[in-house]
């Protein structure tokens, strides 16, 4: 082919080509970059939460010359106590000591005699004997014992190889069995607690094990030969073997976290029975941190469930009505209105719920509860009355516009119910509904409770469910509905028998998206509940959700710490849950769209 273009034109052509390629490159780079950045959220959360579940690393290395023992293996007894022990001829017995750190307990000294433990209080001049208790089976003997940091847990090893943790009480029974790490095994000769942590090392003839007070054994390996000296300032264990000092570096920053400690009830210090608890300890505090995620997961699901309980019937009802009955002109007004409702910020809804609605409902509880039953009845009553109206009236109040003209009717009844609330309460519950609930159903009442959250968050998710369900229903090819109506079905029958079976998956995906939104909503839950991590089903008590917990605690958590990582792990759960739910909903929606296209094509 002969090119008749002048050189200038050819140059211009080349330049255009280059520009085109550059633009494509730029768009691709930016596009991929943006998409990668957006998808990086999941990656970041996984990377940040991963160290929680990595196993501890314990390695032996040559000690730096001149390193000194900062913490001895056994807490040395104060001089007076040492002298007392000598006087009483008790110096051969294994012992454990806790200083007066926990204010409620005071200092304690435990002495092991055979299978019994003598408990001594260190509050006066001389130790005062509190009790002498058997802690292992009579045929066994205690070989080692140690008090964990904080002095509220005592670990006892016996000569059959058993290893148990007891929690310390301020009053009889003085000790309570918390964890049995094992019943039999190699006999433990010594227990060494790591400084300022809830980890301890158990040395037996075969080797060395690392235990965490809740999570149990985290590592087991060979014990270095020779003699243990103590811990250095970084928490490494120093050994002397044939004159050379070795250091056993123990790297287990998140040893207390395992699937079991996160999700199952744990025998925490200070509680009689295993508990599901979320209670993070402050930095440097000796209190046992309680990282049970179950109460938070419960709170999240409870809030979402109560929200959906309100939102699903209302939103689907509205969507059904909009798809089947609303005149087209009105529908074009109503849809954007509800879209506006979706845009209302959570903080405003939460504020109204927490500061206005909650006190209001507290004062009008009887009326509020009555409304739950009353409102559907009143809607049906309106229908009944309407069919008895003269035809001229009915033409003024067409069924298609019922969504609007029912508003004053419902408002009237709501006002009536709230106005009658005190009388209702006086007549049915002796004027004290909350007392009655407490006495007969055992329900406590929090001002900011699940009912309020359900109402507020339900309000927030109604528009999303409505919009998607309405889209699914009105997307059904018109020929189907028209066919059914032509065969004599009423509009409700058409909806129920034709439209819903066709659009069912779409309606389902709408509900799922609503659930995803309810699970992740932060401000409403934060403001409309008391944020106590309870596990109760009661609609009249509060809860704490993952999202609210993140908003409250993450700013204070130390980056890289266990608390921080557990919080990030909970964010990961939230992310995965909503992402999975949304993906599922989206896939369902796509398949539905394809189906509609096929159905529509058959016309």
């Amino acid at each position, binding site marked *: 082919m002969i090119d008749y273009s002048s050189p200038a034109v050819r140059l211009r052509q080349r330049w255009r080509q280059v520009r085109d390629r550059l633009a494509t490159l730029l768009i691709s780079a930016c596009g991929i970059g943006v998409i990668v950045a957006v998808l990086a959220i999941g990656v970041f959360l996984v990377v940040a939460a991963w160290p929680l579940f990595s196993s501890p690393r314990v390695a032996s290395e040559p000690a730096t010359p001149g390193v000194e023992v900062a913490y001895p293996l056994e807490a040395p007894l104060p001089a007076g106590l040492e002298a007392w022990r000598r006087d009483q001829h008790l110096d051969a017995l294994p012992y454990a000591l806790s200083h007066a750190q926990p204010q409620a307990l005071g200092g304690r000294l435990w002495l092991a005699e055979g299978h019994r433990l003598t408990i001594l209080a260190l509050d006066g001049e001389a130790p005062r004997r509190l009790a002498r208790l058997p802690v292992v089976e009579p045929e066994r003997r205690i070989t080692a014992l140690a008090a964990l940091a904080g002095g509220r847990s005592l670990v006892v090893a016996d000569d059959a190889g058993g290893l148990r943790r007891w929690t310390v009480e301020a009053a009889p029974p003085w000790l309570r069995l918390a964890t049995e790490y094992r019943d039999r095994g190699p006999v433990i000769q010594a227990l060494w607690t790591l400084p300022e942590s809830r980890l301890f090392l158990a040395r037996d003839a075969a080797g060395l094990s690392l235990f965490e007070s809740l999570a149990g054994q985290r590592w087991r390996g060979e014990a270095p030969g020779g003699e243990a000296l103590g811990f250095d300032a970084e928490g490494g264990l120093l050994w002397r073997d044939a004159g050379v000092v070795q250091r056993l570096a123990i790297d287990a920053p998140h040893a207390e976290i395992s699937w079991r400690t996160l999700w199952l009830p744990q025998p925490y210090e200070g509680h009689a029975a295993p508990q599901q608890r979320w209670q993070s300890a402050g930095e440097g505090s000796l209190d046992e941190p309680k990282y049970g995620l179950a109460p938070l997961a419960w709170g999240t699901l409870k809030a979402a469930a109560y929200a959906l309980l309100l939102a699903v019937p209302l939103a689907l009802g509205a969507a059904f009505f909009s798809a089947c009955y609303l005149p087209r002109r009105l529908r074009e007004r109503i849809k954007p209105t509800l879209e506006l409702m979706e845009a209302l910020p959570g903080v405003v809804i939460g504020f109204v719920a927490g500061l206005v609605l909650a006190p209001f409902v507290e004062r009008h509880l009887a009326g509020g509860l009555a409304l739950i039953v009353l409102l559907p009845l009143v809607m049906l009553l309106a229908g009944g009355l309407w069919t008895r109206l003269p035809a001229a009236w009915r033409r003024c109040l067409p069924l298609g516009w019922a969504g609007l003209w029912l508003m004053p009717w419902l408002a009237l009844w709501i006002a009536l119910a709230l106005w009658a609330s005190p009388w209702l309460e006086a007549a049915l519950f002796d*004027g004290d509904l909350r007392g009655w609930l407490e006495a007969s159903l055992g329900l406590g009442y929090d001002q900011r409770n699940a009912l309020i959250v359900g109402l507020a968050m339900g309000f927030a998710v109604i528009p999303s469910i409505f919009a998607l369900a309405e889209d699914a229903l009105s997307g059904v090819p018109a020929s189907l509905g028209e066919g059914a109506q032509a065969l004599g079905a009423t509009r409700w029958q058409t909806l129920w028998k034709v439209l819903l079976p066709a659009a069912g998956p779409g309606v389902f995906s709408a509900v799922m998206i609503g659930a995803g939104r309810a699970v992740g909503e932060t401000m409403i839950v934060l403001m409309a509940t008391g944020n106590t991590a309870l596990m109760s089903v009661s609609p009249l008590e509060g809860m704490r959700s993952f999202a609210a917990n993140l908003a409250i605690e993450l700013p204070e958590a130390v980056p890289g710490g266990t608390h921080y990582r557990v919080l990030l792990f909970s964010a990961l759960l939230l992310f995965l849950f909503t992402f999975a739910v949304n993906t599922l909903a989206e896939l369902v929606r796509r398949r539905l769209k394809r189906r509609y296209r096929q159905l529509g094509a058959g016309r």
Partner: protein
Amino acid sequence: MRRLRLPGRAGLPRGEGPWPWLAAGSLALSLLMLAALLLLLAGRGLGHFWPAPVELVTLDDGRQLAGQPVREERRQTLQGSPLRERLYRTGNRDLDGEAWRWVEVTSIARRERPDDWAVIERQRWGELIVRPLALEEAGRRLAEAPLWAAFAARLERVLSLRAERDALRREVIAPLARRLAAGHDDAEARARLTEAQARVGELQAAMTRDALVVESAAGERLTVPLESMLAAWRPNAMSPPEKLAAWGANLWHFLSEGPRAANTAGGVWPAIFGTVLMVLLMSALVTPFGVLAAVYLHEVAPQGRLTGWVRIAVRNLAGVPSIVYGVFGLGVFVYGIGGRLDDWLFADSLPSPTFGTGGLLWASLTLALLTLPVVIVATEEGLARIPAQQREAALALGATRAEMLRRVILPMALPAMLTGVILAIARAAGEVAPLMLVGVAKLAPQVPVDGDFPYLHLERKFMHLGYHVFDVGFHSGDVEAALPLVYATALLLVGVILVLNLTAILLRHHLRARHAALRSR
């Protein structure tokens, strides 16, 4: 479709059973809740600025109190008998220890609205609800009639003196002091500084000249220096136009002033400024990247299975809870990038962090990430609506792909992009949860823009309307006093967001109509 009309029951639906009524009721109830919420916000938010009348209440036992009635509640006594109580805003916190008073309605013997009672707003201790008795000038009682006119004139003088003093401090003294502190030592600046400081001293002295003698409802007399007052009005003596003017002035003060008294009084100007600035920064970040990503996804990337999956993933990220974005912002932007930046650039100010703590930049970035899916999805929808013939025609005429995109496709998709950006702004303006992690402050009197280099301080914390609602409503000592302000702030926020959304909806409507016309051609 023409509906068949039956002769006897023209246009009426056949018997549909009870279900449609439940469905209609659901719709009505949803709309009712929305209307109730908006009405509540509008009523309480705007009503707060209306000068409420002062009632002088005489109780059965002869005691008197003066206050503005706020609301009534029905409660129950411990014995179970119903009780109607009315809340009065009585002010005078320094005298009574309490600015609110619940009064049992049945115990009220008489209610009056005397004209001469005044509400005086002070710099500290909140409002004073009192009866003015006389004016004092430098400790000497004046006998000026009419008292209120004289007082108003003198208050006006104090206010103008204060305005002059504040302007002097802000515009002369502060810059000079900064220049001197920075080491530019010159005699002229020093002289000007001394002169200005002397003038401030004079103004200060002039302001303390006058005082007002007032009497409270309990009969206490006190002398209030005019210097401590911000405004004063006699609601009972005001005519409706005057009240309307006062309402407008109050509203303006709310919008244009900073908060006072631990955020429970004053205005929300810094919060408005912070919100707007953050949203502007965010849209500057999100618009180009969101549009480019959408163009890539729709026009450049091979339309295979992978792209389909990416599209679904991006769409779903719009449904990921906002707090998760906040966590990401905190972990990556603040602790990750910010901490690194501090190590490299601001090592001399460590350990107090510069970029290693929440700030304007990180908040905007986090929200940009949060709203990216919104912009991508909206732009992609816009691109998908453009008929393929447009692209084919452009390419057939010899345009390269870049030219086709720039000259044909992007201009056509512009309204869609705008819709996306507006929706993104509306979403970002209402999000609070991620901001709590990445940089919002309960009180930041320094706005992030000022006359100091580099003028825009990206590392500063900022105030935000939404967080203001949360903080004032839930963390202030006197919730009753803060509540009207929270209502007003919430109304402002909702108003802004609704207007933005309405714009987006209208734009989209217009867009659909245009494309429908294009397709039918």
